[in-house]
């Protein structure tokens, strides 16, 4: 068994620390995975704005590759997660579209496995089991778990957790001993997809979300989405600046892994300061 690992474009670029920390955690937990050979871009976040079919056929290619490996496809990137699951869903529910796409790709797709997020994988491994592996408790670290959009919406196919009141990420994070604050805006959109084209707008969104987190006593934000991370990280202009970590980074720390190996040194908002202050790194 094991998983086909689909990093996605961002994880080879701006979100390379997510890639690093994800692999680090998977290795540490001994979860088998193989990078999907010759994977291609899933089209997020552009294809679905240009061509409905293309939006399915781009991810479809990767789904098929994974099916040939006979492994469930897994990705840390929520944007990819959304596109892949969307395509998976479309291929199985819309025969007409499926025929069109699959002929174009010259192959068939049974859809035996649903594409997964790395959080799903960690959940299949089991929060308790994860907790047992924790060597360094992140005591007193107050964390605001931020889900963003694509893990939860549309619930039709992106159904990682309850779309309005999720809790799975909190459970994972709390296994590290950190405390997850209860705050209402964990599913609010930060506008990442407009980050380039509509920066002013996005700044206000990001700032608002970070402020809300701070007002509910969070010292940092944790997310599983490279777009959200980059966006919140780069675009926040609030009084109090909060570092934005990837789930895998915190887990990695709790597993006692080297901050450098987790890419914690390459954040926009200083990610190390807080950790040092708390003697966590």
């Amino acid at each position, binding site marked *: 068994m094991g998983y086909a690992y689909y990093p996605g474009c961002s994880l080879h670029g701006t979100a390379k620390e997510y890639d690093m920390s994800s692999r680090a955690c998977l290795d540490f937990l001994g979860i088998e995975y193989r990078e999907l050979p010759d994977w291609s871009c899933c089209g997020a976040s552009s294809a679905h704005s240009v061509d409905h079919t293309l939006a399915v056929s781009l991810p479809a290619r990767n789904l098929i590759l994974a099916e040939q490996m006979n492994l469930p496809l897994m990705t840390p990137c929520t944007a990819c997660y959304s596109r892949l699951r969307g395509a998976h869903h479309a291929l199985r529910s819309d025969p007409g579209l499926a025929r069109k796409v699959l002929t174009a790709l010259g192959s068939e797709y049974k859809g035996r496995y649903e594409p997964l997020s790395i959080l799903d994988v960690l959940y299949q491994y089991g929060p308790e089991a994860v907790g047992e592996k924790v060597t360094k408790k992140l005591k007193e670290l107050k964390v605001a778990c931020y889900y963003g959009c694509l893990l939860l919406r549309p619930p039709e196919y992106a159904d990682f957790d*309850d*779309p*309005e*009141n999720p809790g799975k990420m909190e459970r994972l994070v709390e296994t590290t001993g950190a405390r997850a604050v209860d705050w*209402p*805006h964990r599913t609010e959109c930060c506008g990442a997809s407009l980050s380039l084209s509509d920066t002013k707008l996005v700044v206000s969104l990001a700032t608002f979300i970070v402020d809300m987190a701070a007002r509910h006593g969070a010292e940092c934000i944790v997310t599983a989405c490279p777009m959200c991370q980059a966006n919140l990280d780069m675009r926040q202009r609030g009084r109090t600046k909060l570092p934005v970590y990837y789930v895998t980074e915190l887990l990695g720390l709790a597993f006692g892994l080297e901050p450098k190996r987790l890419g914690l040194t390459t954040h926009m908002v200083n990610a190390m300061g807080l950790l040092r202050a708390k003697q966590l790194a």
Partner: protein
Amino acid sequence: MIRIGVFVCWCGSNIAGTVDVGKVAEESAKMPGVVHVEQNKYTCSDPGQDSIRKAIKEHRLDRVVVAACSPRMHEMTFRKCAASAGLNQYLVEMANIREHCSWVHSDMSVATPKAVDIVRRAVAKVKRSVPLFPSTIPVEKRALVIGGGIAGIQAALDIAEAGYEVTIVEREPTIGGRMAQLDKTFPTLDCSSCILTPKMVDAASHPGIRILTCSEVEDISGYVGNFQVRLRKRARSIDEARCTACGICISKCPTSRDSEFNMGLGTRKAIYMPFPQAVPNKPTIDREICRHFTEGKCGICQKVCPSGAVDFSQEDQVLNEKFGAVVAATGATQFSVEAYGEYGYGRYPDVITGLELERLISSTGPTDGKIRRPSDGRIPRTVVFIKCVGSRDENKGYPYCSKACCMYTAKHAILLKEKIPGASAYVFYMDVRAGGKDYEEFYQRSQEIGTRYVRGRVSRIYPLDGKLIVQGEDTLLGQRVEVEADLVVLAAAMVPQIDAPEMARKLGISYNQYGFFSEAHPKLRPVETNTAGVFLAGTCQGPKDIPETVAQASAAAVKVISLFAKSELTTNPNVASVDESLCSGCLWCMNVCPYKAIEEKIITERAGKETVTRSVASVNTGLCQGCGACTVACRDGAMNLLGFTNEQILAEVEALCL
């Protein structure tokens, strides 16, 4: 030996004017089996009928065909006539040569041969007719009313007033239902209990009405006039005869839990009365939490009871009783609004439902009629009402409109202003549906006293610094709006009881995709069901407000009364019947029967050496209405419809096509 008599009617010139009656008679005489033919000026007249009786006797006729008007006109007449001459009335067949022939044709040369065909058809059919005997079934003149809400109470009172026995079965410890929980009622704003309690007392004190609380219907069998019903009366642990309702036991009881009656906003003891005016006015012991039953300790109530009415040893009673008619008044319940994660009900204590607000407003409620918000008991200054929570929402709730919410929200807004001067109310709505006498005026009144109606749905609610931030859209303004509320009230949809389908199955009636019971005909038979003798009242049939519910309850009562007015019911003998030798027992017929009149029957028969058992369809003639849908569903031709048998219809076809 078949001896058919054909009686051709002139109907004055109505028939004779365009049909050559003589020719018809002449032709009929040639038809196989016909031994006697006669013409009459007016066959339906006394002389006409006499001549039929005479002919039956003289010519020993065993079948009669009357070629005259539409059977819908005179079939009964001639059947009675034949019966009076000692012939089985179902051996009479009519040939409609008036409405279907003489009246629609002018040319005798075409009308006459057609008339002959029509007679031939009737002859061919009657030849294959067999004597049928309508069975009569007695009517047990006792009505069962399931549910003791306002619908059940009203129906019971009306039936009892007509002099028939009624039993109300209510699963709660008291009758009164939802209406008892309400504070005031729209559009008149008179207090709910002030108009309900008297009715409850009337019902309790009426000699014709028996009230079984803490009781449920376990099983119903039989058919109209003769329902066998098994009831379970749960142990109340109180000897109702002895108890004087002094209430000492309640005051002394150490254990308590959230009060259902107060929608969990207050608490009640383990031995309790849901509310002071409960009927019957006797406490009940909740064995789930009573320490005597949970830990075998305590028993204080028993010690303090002056009349020794507390009886821990009491056991459930099972009653098997017979009823002639059933009124289903099982009511509806409230949509569980947790489904709306974005509104945070359950997470944010100050987000409540309309029914909870009723309890907060009610003087018998947990706050003695002061509107205080659950979280900190503060008096709310700003209250937001959200409509259609669960209604008109196929995504998270139900597509239908719950009908009462628009009005009770208007009512809430008005009451809020009365109770808390200067408080401000916002109502988020999509449409205001105020159809009904004085309703629109009532809604306008709520606007005039300063309620802000915002046209749009609320998207989400979140708490911030002790306030609830309510984010919605004013679609008329085309802009996002935000209200800092102290209290949010969700107008939860009216949904069927969770066990409605189960009840429907017990009653043998159908229900719609949501679980509301289906009436026999949406326009013309709104309180009847497809099962004769079972009637509907109130919200179990669909969302309703109180006036509508009461009206329907009385309507149902009248149906019951008119059923009981008959000494006995004669069943139509034109019912389905099974030829067991042919039936393969696929029971496809069972599925198509709209009256649940077909059931499986196990028969044993000898096959060669061994005796084998197999199942076949069997028809309950009490329930069968004779539609014949089953006969077509039956491939092996085992199912037939008496009076319209396959043999007869095929013969008619042949006769017409000759």
